[in-house]
């Protein structure tokens, strides 16, 4: 069993924690992460704004969880796979997927707007925990093929209660599949607080029941996350099997814009967590270390602004997907039984145009 003492490398005030197990990443690397954090935060803000403007139907923001998002993308090597949920848009973008394509799910254009095979980013999963067995399958397949591919699978604290979470972890352990499970424990499943989800000492403690090493990490400390996840990725790639990781973090926004968090939590709690913000902390650290100055900050903000602008522009057009697509992808081969239905729709659309 791994030690379940929380791993933290940078304190909320930016000072180094001094951990005997993990070294602090180099300043250059941390600066890179800071760039990504700012980009991620800006992305979250922009997406939320697009909801208010009616350009997106809904957006489950990862505001406050950007360190997890950034770390999840950062620790993977070329060829590795990421399995994100609906809340993990930033991780998908950091992994290289076009931000506008990521958002097509929420703009209502199509279910998955990007090519999962291109960046090895699975479609964002909506049915909770269902993506976890897929992640194990991809990993097990890689192993059978003799590749050292690693799969990083994300889920929330609520999702750990689902049967699929259990089955996936057990399969991974029994098959020694190269998967890293990262549970972003943001304390809520919509309105349901962690205490009503689990009474275990931690979610990471679930590893023991599968014979799987596990770790508990400060989920707002990108340094700790990359250090611990990086190690898990290396172990998986080396044939040492899966790891369960719990990131201690917090969902700063409501579940989505459609949610009213005041019904189930106090503002005080949110304020308390704001003090542990992942950006603030790393900024303070880098400022103190002298690797981040005003000019650099301006450059970083500007580059984040570019991502935001790209997203705005990409989603501002009144795109209208082709109705014929409804029938195009259901089956690979010709689908004779859908032909009559496709024709009916086509005829209606023609009639519409002509009337």
């Amino acid at each position: 069993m791994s030690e379940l003492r929380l791993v933290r490398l940078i304190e909320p005030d930016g000072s180094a924690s001094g951990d005997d197990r993990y070294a602090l990443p180099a300043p250059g690397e941390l600066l890179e992460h800071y760039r990504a954090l700012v980009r991620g935060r800006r992305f979250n803000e922009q997406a939320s704004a697009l909801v208010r403007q009616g350009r997106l139907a809904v957006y489950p923001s990862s505001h406050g969880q950007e360190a997890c998002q950034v770390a999840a993308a950062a620790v993977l090597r070329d060829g590795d796979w990421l399995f994100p949920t609906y809340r993990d848009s930033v991780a998908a973008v950091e992994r290289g997927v076009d931000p506008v394509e990521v958002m097509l799910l929420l703009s209502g254009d199509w279910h998955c707007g990007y090519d999962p095979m291109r960046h090895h980013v699975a479609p964002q999963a909506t049915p909770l925990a269902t993506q976890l067995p897929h992640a194990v399958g991809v990993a097990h397949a890689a192993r059978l093929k003799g590749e050292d591919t690693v799969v990083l699978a994300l889920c929330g604290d609520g999702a750990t209660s689902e049967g699929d979470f259990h089955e996936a972890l057990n399969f991974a352990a029994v098959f020694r599949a190269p998967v890293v499970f990262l549970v972003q424990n943001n304390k809520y499943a919509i309105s349901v607080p962690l205490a009503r989800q689990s009474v275990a000492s931690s979610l990471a403690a679930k590893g023991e029941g599968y014979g799987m090493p596990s770790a508990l990490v400060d989920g707002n400390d990108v340094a700790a996350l990359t250090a611990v996840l990086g190690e898990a990725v290396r172990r998986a790639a080396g044939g040492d099997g899966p790891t369960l990781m719990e990131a201690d973090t917090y969902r700063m926004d409501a579940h989505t814009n459609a949610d009213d968090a005041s019904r189930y939590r106090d503002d005080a709690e949110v304020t308390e967590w704001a003090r542990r913000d992942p950006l603030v902390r790393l900024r303070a650290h880098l400022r103190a270390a002298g690797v981040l100055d005003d000019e650099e900050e301006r450059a970083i903000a500007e580059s984040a602004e570019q991502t935001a602008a790209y997203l705005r522009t990409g989603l501002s057009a009144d795109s209208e997907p082709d109705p014929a697509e409804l029938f195009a992808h259901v089956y690979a081969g010709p689908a004779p039984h859908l032909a009559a239905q496709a024709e009916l729709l086509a005829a209606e659309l023609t009639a519409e145009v002509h009337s």
Partner: protein
Amino acid sequence: MTATKLTMAQALNTALRDAMTADESVVVFGEDVGPLGGVFRVTDGLTETFGEQRCFDTPLAESGIAGLAIGMAMNGFRPVIEMQFDAFAYPAFEQITSHLAKMANRTRGRVRLPVVVRVPYAGGIGGVEHHCDSSEAYYAHTPGLTVVAPATNADAYGLLRAAIEHPDPVIFLEPKRHYFTREEVDTATPVPPIGQAVVRREGRDATLVAYGPSVPVALAAAELAATEGRDLGVVDLRSIVPFDEETVLAQVRRTGRAVVVAEAQGFASVASEIAARIGERCFHHLEAPVRRVTGFDIPYPPPKLERHHLPSPDRILDAVDALQWDET
């Protein structure tokens, strides 16, 4: 003052309140049904009024929720559980199919399970994937389940009361897109018996058979048809199982023509069943084949395309037009 304007969500909430007040054994649970009041607010305020023991949040696990309901029903309760969205009931499919539906039969009626499974049902709300399925066929095909789908807010109230009083497990399908539609509801109206269809509109020329969210669409089609001089009747099934064959067949025999309207994909569906039955039992009364206007046999479309998939009054009228009318 029992008659008042309520949204369907409010009508359902009132039904839960009235049932919980009338019967101490009624409990409500599921995901986010407690302090939040459910993502559609159907359980709004129940925890506050009745306490945490009567309305509570569970861990996030649908099979567990259905299983817990079965056990609690075995021990004297009448659980009303919520599946947050239609497609999120699938993890509970084994519990529903292998246990909830079969328990009474396998125990020779010694263990009855008066459980209501509330399912926010079907589409038309611009929801992303997995939020708009129409799953009634899965349940209707499973012996032992009673399947109910209200189309009006008054029926939402009355049928939910009836479902909670029902001795057998009921799958209760709530058309999502009407949650926030306001209509007159009189809670003093006698609770309609489960298994009874209602003729929403009499019509001489053809009969539209529908249920749940398709009823208003069928009625809209009938309105339109009337302006063109065609008199269409509309039957609202209300219960899918038991299916009120008599009411449906009587209407169709009178008109000699029928169109079945349902939002779910059509293959091997409830609409297939209705069409097959009409074909079998009204054979000599039919002037034309029974037509079906259903969702296409595709996964539910993304929001921007859903209107192409959903049965529309126009599509229904096209089907009516195809009923081999003799224009002489």
